[in-house]
C-alpha cells in the first residue's frame, strides 16, 4: 500500500467523477458538429447536474423505499467499478478485491437495481423500460464477459490492471482474437450505454425508449445521481476499452509519479478521440427496431465467442 498506489486510486475515482459529464458533453458536441447543429457547451451536463441537485424531489405516490435507495446504489456501484478500471494507472489497491468478473457483476448490480426501481412505480413505461433493459443486458453481459475472458487468457490473469500492464509490455503485435473482441466490445458499449443504434439517448417518445424510460419518474437529486451514474458508465466502458485495446500510456507502477502525471493528458486525448469516434458511429447509424436489438447483441456475443475460439486455435 505505497503512497503512489493510494494516490493513483483516489486520483482515478476523482477523475472519473469529474471527467464523466465532460465526456458526455464532448460526445454531444461532436454529434452536433456532424449533424450541422450548434451544440450546447461541453460543460452543459455540469450545469444540468447542479440544477437538478438544487431542486425538490417529487416522488410518485406509489414509490417505495427501494425507489428512493436505487439512485444511490447505482451511483455507488458505478464509482466502485470506476475504482478498479485502470484509466490512469495500474497500481490500484482495490483491484485485488475485485477483478474483471466482479466488474461485470457490479455493472449487473446497477442494471438490476435500475430495472427494479423502474418497476416500482407501476406504470406502463417503467415496466416496459425495465423489460427492455434486462433484454439488452442478458445478451450484453455474457458478451462483455467473453471479451474480458479473451484478454484474461492472453495475459494469464483476470485482474484488469494486470491485464492492461500485460498487454502494454508485449510487442506491438496484432492479436487476431483481440480484433474480434474489439468489434464485439464496441457493439456492447453501444448497447449498454443506450447509444444509437440500440437506443436513442435524446428521444422523448416513450415507446422508443429503453434507458430513458426507466428514468421518467426520477426528479431532483435522484435524477442527478442517475444521470451522473449514466455518464460514469459511459466513461467506465471507454476506459475498459482503452485498458484492453489501447493500454499504452497508462501509468505503470514502474513508471512512478512521472508516468502517472503523463497519463492524465494521454487519457484526455484518448477520450477525445473515442468520443469523436462514438459520435461518428451514432451519426452514421439509424436506430434499430427494438425487436432487432437482440440480433445486434447476439452478433456481439458470437463475435466474442469467435474471438475466444480464434485465441484457442491460433494461440494469439
Amino acid at each position, binding site marked *: 500500500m505505497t503512497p503512489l498506489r493510494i494516490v493513483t486510486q483516489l486520483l482515478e475515482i476523482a477523475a472519473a467523477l469529474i471527467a464523466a459529464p465532460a465526456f458526455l458533453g464532448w460526445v454531444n458536441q461532436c454529434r452536433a458538429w456532424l449533424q450541422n447543429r450548434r451544440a450546447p457547451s461541453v460543460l452543459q451536463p455540469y450545469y444540468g447536474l447542479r440544477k437538478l441537485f438544487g431542486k425538490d424531489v417529487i416522488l410518485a405516490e406509489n414509490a417505495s423505499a427501494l425507489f428512493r435507495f436505487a439512485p444511490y446504489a447505482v451511483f455507488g456501484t458505478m464509482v466502485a467499478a470506476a475504482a478498479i478500471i485502470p484509466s490512469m494507472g495500474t497500481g490500484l489497491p482495490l483491484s485485488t478485491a475485485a477483478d474483471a468478473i466482479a466488474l461485470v457483476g457490479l455493472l449487473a448490480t446497477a442494471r438490476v437495481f435500475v430495472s427494479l426501481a423502474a418497476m416500482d412505480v407501476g406504470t406502463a413505461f417503467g415496466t416496459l423500460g425495465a423489460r427492455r433493459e434486462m433484454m439488452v443486458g442478458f*445478451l450484453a453481459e455474457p458478451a462483455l464477459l467473453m471479451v474480458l475472458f479473451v484478454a484474461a487468457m492472453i495475459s494469464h490473469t483476470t485482474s484488469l490492471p494486470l491485464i492492461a500492464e500485460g498487454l502494454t509490455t508485449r510487442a506491438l503485435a496484432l492479436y487476431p482474437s483481440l480484433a474480434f473482441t474489439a468489434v464485439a466490445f464496441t457493439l456492447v458499449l453501444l448497447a449498454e450505454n443506450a447509444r444509437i443504434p440500440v437506443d436513442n439517448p435524446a428521444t422523448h417518445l416513450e415507446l422508443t425508449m429503453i434507458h430513458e424510460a426507466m428514468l421518467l419518474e426520477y426528479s431532483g437529486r435522484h435524477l442527478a445521481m442517475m444521470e451522473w451514474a449514466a455518464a460514469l458508465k459511459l466513461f467506465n466502458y471507454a476506459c475498459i476499452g482503452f485498458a484492453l485495446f489501447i493500454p499504452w500510456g497508462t501509468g505503470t507502477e514502474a513508471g512512478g509519479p512521472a508516468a502517472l502525471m503523463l497519463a492524465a493528458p494521454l487519457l484526455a486525448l484518448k477520450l477525445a478521440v473515442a468520443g469523436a469516434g462514438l459520435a461518428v458511429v451514432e451519426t452514421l447509424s439509424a436506430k434499430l427496431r427494438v425487436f432487432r436489438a437482440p440480433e445486434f447483441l447476439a452478433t456481439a456475443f458470437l463475435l466474442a465467442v469467435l474471438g475466444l475460439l480464434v485465441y484457442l486455435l491460433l494461440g494469439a
Partner: protein
Amino acid sequence: MEVSFSYLDACLGVLVAWGAIGVAGLIRPRSVEFAGRTLFPLGAVCGVMLTVVAIASIAAPTERAVLPVGLPDLPFHIRRDALSAVFLALLGGASAGISVFSAGYFRKGEGALPGLLCLEYHVFLAAMGLVLIADDAYAFMVAWETMALASYFLVTTQHRIAEIRSAGFLYLLIAHVGAIGILLSFGVMQGGSWQFTFDAMRSAHIAPEWASAAFCLALFGFGAKAGLVPLHVWLPEAHPAAPSPVSALMSGVMLKTAVYGLLRVSFDLLHGVQWWWGLLALAFGLGSAFYGVIFAAVQTDMKRLLAWSSIENLGIVFTGIGLTLVFQGCDMSALAALALIATLYHALNHAFMKSVLFLGTGSVLHATGQRNLGRLGGLIHRMPWVTWLTLVGVLAIAGLPPLNGFVSEWLLLQAFLFAGEVPQAFVNMLLPVGAAVVALCTALAGYVMVKFFGVIFLGQPREASLAGAHDAGVMERIGLLWLAGACIALGLLPVQVVHLLGSVVQELLHVGPGDWGVDGWLLAPPAARHASYGPLALFAVTVAVVVLGAVGVRVWFGRRARRGPAWDCGFVRLDSRMQDTAEGFGQPIRHMFEPFFSMQRELPTPFDALPRYRVTVGDRIWGLVYAPLGAVVRGTAEFAARLQQGRIATYLLYSFVTLVVLLALVL
C-alpha cells in the same frame, strides 16, 4: 484432542430426535399449537445442532459404525466423512430456517392434519440425513425410498385436488425410475463380491467399461432426482403442488442429496475417473441450465418459475461436477480442486437462496391466496419484511456481488478459464463455449429474478383484494432472517467457507487444496490466474460511497421530497392493468428462443363479444420423449393384457404348458 463423543453418534442422535419429533406429532394430531409452537421449533433446534456438529467434524477423521437395524445379515453401515459432513451442514442449516418458518406457516386448511404433516416432514428430514451417512447400498436405498415416499406424501398434502394428485404420481414415477438406475449402478459396482457395503465397492476392481456403465447409470439415477433435462418433468409439477416449506426443503436440500450421491459414486466408490464422463455430465448440466432458465423466464405461476430456476441451478452444479471429472480424468488435480470447490459452494448457496425464495412465495400465498403472477403486485407496501428478505434471496440468486451466488459463479468461471490446458484438443474448444453458456445462463437468471421480484412485490396491485394482504408472522420472519443471513454470510466470508470445503477436496481428490486465503479476507485460489476477490472490501467501498453521497447531497443541497402522481404522458386514467404482465416480461425470451417452446395461442377474432388472447407455453420434451414412451408402455401393456382371457380353461392350459416345459427342462 480427545473427544468424549463421536461426531457420528451426534449426527445419528439428531436424526433419531427428528424421527421422535415426527412420531410425537401423532400424539395430538389435530392441534396446530402443539405442532407449531413445540414440535417444529424443536426440529429447528435439532437442525442447528446438526449444522454445528457437522461443521465441527469436517476436518475430523472418518468415523464408521454399524447399526443393529436392518435384516439379520444386512445391518446398516453408517459413516461420516468430510463429504457427508458438508452436506449434513447444508441439511441442518437450511432445514433449521425452514422448520422455524413452518412453525408459523402450517395452519388448518392445508388438507392434512398438522400432526400428520409434522410426522411426514420430520421423517423426510431424518431420511435425508440417513442418505448422507449411509455406508452400504442397502441402507442407502432404504433411506432413498423413505425420502421419496415421505416427500410424496408431503407433495400430495392437498390430495383432493386432481392436479396435485397427478403431480405427485409423476414425481413418484420418476423417482422410482431413478432409483432403479441407482440400484443397477450399485449392482455393477459390487464387482462380483456380492457384498453391498461401500467399503467392498471401494476395494472392488472392475473393468473400465463396467465402471463407465456404473457411472452412466448413476448419472441417470441421480440426475432423475436432481431434475436433469430430460428427466426434469416432475420438478415443475411437484414443487408448485407442495406446500411452500416443503417445496423449499425439496428444492433446497433434497436435490442436493442427488449431487451428494453422484459425488460419492464418481470420486469415492469408483476408481480411475475417465475424462469423458465429465463431458457427459457437462453436456447434460449445461443443457439443463439453459433449458431451465429460458422456461423460467416465460412462467406465469410464481412457484413454477422457481422450480424451473432450480433446474437451472442444478444444471450449473452438474456442470461443475463435469468440469471436476474432466480435470481429474486428465490428472490436473489442482484445477479439479478448484472446480470441485465451485460445485460444492454453489450447492451450498442454492440451498439457502432457493429456500428464501420459496418461503417468500409461501408467505405471499398465505397473505393473498394467489399463485398467479398476473394477480399480484405492489406487495412491498403491505408486506415489507417478506419483501426485503426475499430481495436478499433474489439478488443472491441473480449472482450479484457481494452476495453468495456471485462467489460460486466466480469460482466456476475461474475454473473454466483453465479449460484450455486440457490435453484433448477438441475439449479445449468446447469448454470455453461452455463458459459462454454459463455466463448466458447467469445473465438470464438475473432477467428471471427481476421479473419474479418486480411483478410480485413492486408496482401497483393488480387485484383489489391485495389491499388486505398481511405481513408474515414472527416465526416466519425468524426463518427468513436465518436463511437470508446465511446468504449474506456465505457471500461476505468466502475464505472461511472455502477453508472448510478444502477438507472434502483433500478426501476425494487426494490433493491438498493449498492456502486459498490471503490475510484471511481475500479469496485467491492458488491455482487461479492471479485473480482475487475480497467481498468485504468491495462492499465496504460501495457502502462508503453510498453513505458519503447521501450525506453530501443532504448537507450541500438539502431539498425536501414530496409526493405527486406518476408520469402518465397525458393519459389520465392509468390503472394497474397497464403494467407489464408476467407474459409480457417473458415475451423477448419467447421470441428469441421460440424453437424450444411448444406454444398454443388462442387469438381473438373481430367477432368475439369478449375477445380473449391466451398463450400457453409447454415443454417440448413431453411430446418428444414422454408421450411416445407412454404410448409404447400402454401398447405393450394392452398387448400383454391379451393373455388375460378371463376363462378358467385358458388359465388351466397355461398351468399345464408351464408344467410340461419345466418337466422337460429338469428331466
